[in-house]
């Protein structure tokens, strides 16, 4: 079943009254299946972030369609949009975006609290998410008391605690050292396998991308290539490197 269906997505930047118009996305067609761990790669200016923003409803495309879980998200407005974002999407950011005023537990349950979920359900879900990420013992701590990797794992827990249709991750390992980065990526892979979580991760790091089940490459606002993992990470990493070599240029 398709979780995300993107059809002919275009996004222009520039003034409405003329002047220079930049085409950030020039017609993207993409579908993400339930339970997929999709990587999006591409050099700077290729449209990765614009694509992510359009999917995450933060930005509105110029034309095209985006359906998530069967719902046309471009037709959502106001409160419905906020609720959709809160209940159907989970976000993981490069800089964690944890609130320093809250404990990890409070950070994780934040989306549920905002959705006014009953306390018993919140507790059940938080302990499950924390267990999945291996941070049960850190729940009472504040973000400044834990390591970067632990912070990001808490952020991942927050992203999945609402059991969203889709987890969107924007360079989740960008601020981490390689050990912590690997921890976070394995968590993603495990969640993907064990909980059938659908993850869309934007990254410039081929090592991070090699954890994915499929990787698409963007160049100048168009899909350039696509690779599907055979299950062997080392081999997948090599193939990703080959594609990148062909694309050339700066990856970010």
């Amino acid at each position, binding site marked *: 079943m398709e979780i995300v269906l993107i059809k002919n997505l275009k996004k222009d930047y520039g003034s409405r009254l003329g002047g220079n118009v930049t085409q950030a996305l020039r017609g993207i067609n993409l579908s993400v299946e339930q339970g997929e761990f999709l990587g999006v790669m591409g050099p700077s200016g290729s449209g990765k972030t614009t694509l992510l923003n359009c999917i995450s409803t933060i930005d509105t495309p110029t034309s095209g369609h985006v359906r998530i879980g069967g719902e046309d998200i471009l037709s959502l407005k106001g409160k419905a949009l906020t*609720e959709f974002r*809160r209940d159907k999407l989970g*976000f993981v950011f490069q800089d964690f975006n944890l*609130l*320093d*005023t809250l404990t990890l537990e409070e950070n994780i349950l934040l989306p*549920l609290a*905002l959705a*006014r979920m009953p306390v018993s359900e919140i507790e059940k879900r938080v302990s499950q998410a924390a267990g999945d990420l291996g941070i049960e013992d850190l729940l009472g701590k504040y973000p400044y008391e834990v390591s970067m990797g632990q912070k990001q794992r808490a952020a991942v827990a927050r992203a999945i605690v609402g059991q969203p249709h889709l987890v969107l991750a924007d360079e989740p390992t960008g601020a981490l050292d390689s050990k912590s980065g690997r921890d976070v990526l394995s968590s993603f892979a495990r969640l993907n396998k064990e909980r059938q979580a659908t993850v869309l991760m934007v990254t410039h790091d081929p090592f991070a991308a090699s954890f994915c089940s499929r990787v698409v490459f963007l160049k100048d606002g168009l899909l350039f290539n696509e690779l599907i993992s055979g299950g062997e990470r080392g081999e997948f990493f090599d193939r990703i490197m080959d594609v990148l070599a062909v694309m050339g240029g700066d990856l970010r």
Partner: protein
Amino acid sequence: MNVNKLVFKNIRRRLGDYAMYLASSGFIVAVFYIFASIYFNDQFVFLQEHSDKYQVGFRVAAILVLIYGAAFIWYSSSFFVRSRKKETATYLLMGLGKGQVSRMLFLEIMTIGLIGIGLGIGAGVLFSKYVGMLFVKITKQIADVQFALVPKALGVSVLVFVALYLVNALHISSLVYRTKLIDMYQADKKAERRPKGSWIMGTLGLGLLVWGYIDSGMIGIPFNAQSLLRVTVEVAAGTFLFMGSLLTLILRLASKNKKSYWGGPRLIAISQLMYRIRGQALSLAAIAVLSAMALTAVGAVWSIYSTSEEEARYYEPFDIAYVSDVAKGGQVDAEVDAVIASYGETPVYDTVLELPRVKVSGDGRAYAVSESRFNEIVKVQHSGTKISLEPGEAVYTDQDYYTNSMDSRTPHYEEVTLSAGERAFTLTVLDNREDKITPININPLFVVSDEDYDAIASSAGENTLYLRGMMLADPLGADPMIRELDRVVPGPEFGDFTQPEGDREFEAYALKYENLFLDTGIFLFVELFTGLLFLMALGSVLYYKQLNESRFDAPRYRILTRVGMDKSEIRRSVGLQLGIVFGIPLLISIVHSIFAIRILTMVFANIWGAFFFVVAVYALLFGLYYLVTWRQYVARVTA
């Protein structure tokens, strides 16, 4: 783009931020101008008659306004500078010289200052007539207040506030020279731990607070300064301890109640408050204590003011009273009659009260009055109760019990020996009372039976005070006549009633009434405006403090938006957070001042109505600050 243009653009861009500032500083300038315009305005003739009284009052008021103004300008400007550290640093990095940046800041502050002064003077001129009318009404004077531009007041106000802004702008612009670039770019704040709060300190604080309240209930009349001070210290210290610890604990408890705490925006509001309570508790406590003091001061002055009428009656039980010369030909009496007739006035009661001077063994001079005359006057004055005596009995009446009770020397007689002329009368005193029928100087007064009175009077002979007392149908309406009588009745050199009966020979209720209301009215008028300014200054401190914090909160709310909090939830969360910040000092100060006012009402008039009016204005003011802060805070964190 030159520096001047940059200044202009900056101000235009920040007009929203400056709105509150302009309103507050404009209000301060307006109040100052209005005070000055009453001070320098010759429309208020009655002030010139009592120049000594009002000059002191208005000078003190002007100085207070200036102090608040200076503090406000200083505080708010430093807020602007702090919030623009990075901007300033960027200008420096871009290659603007320190001199240029400093000149830019100077120009911006001066421009804003001048706009504020202009607005304030404009509002002051516009409203000075109405405030003048209010002033006349409060002091119960008669004056026809016309709209007038008072050049002297204008000049002084502009001069003083331009000078204030000049000093402030120079200080701010000199900061550029004294701060290192790196300091301007550095983060303003490190992560704070959520404070634990101490049960011991918190309970101690609450205990002190409650004990202070109980202690205030035990204060009786007469007051002594020591116990008032003790209660103030107890309550103030209690407030600080309570805010410092117990508040944190209460918030922690609130966070333990998962059902309510995990209910959306509350989670954010409470965690934000806890995060920041350590830095805020002290200033919240200070604001609570200071506003309680301001409320109490306004309440105290209002209660003294409200007592003025009762007090005027206390001093002047008769509408008109003077020492009659009936025993010496009655020339003065005749002149008085002529004046009264010329005004077409007929007193509803007119008598000459014969009061033999007697000596009280050990206590000196006293006066005697007969039972029947006393009862007659009590009836006319609608005061006190009738007395019924047998020969050999007397009632002691204290005609100046305020002074006596304040000096704690209220006499109490069981038996008294009154000597008049050659004879002495030993009488049983049935009662010691505070029934007043004469001005305070004729004191004490012994009411004796008619039989005893005749004997005392004949024995006293010439040593008798003849007090002419009159009651009028409309004592306050007969003002011009009373003023003329005041001129006709001769001064202390007349007759033999110089010293003991006091230095004022003509006593009139209307004159006392006007005098007291003028005194206390000036006081009240000044206190109302300076109190309002003071509370306003406290409100602005909260306002600027919160807006300053909003800079650190903006990233948090950005995260929250991403996590799925919409704008209305942010608004609610901020509303709750700021509601607690503004509500707690408001609530605590109102409770504090209720206890303080309760003490005051024991002595002065019942002023709960007036007090709750003042509280309502205060709550309205804080409510306004709260709403504006809320709006701007949300705008800043969601921008």
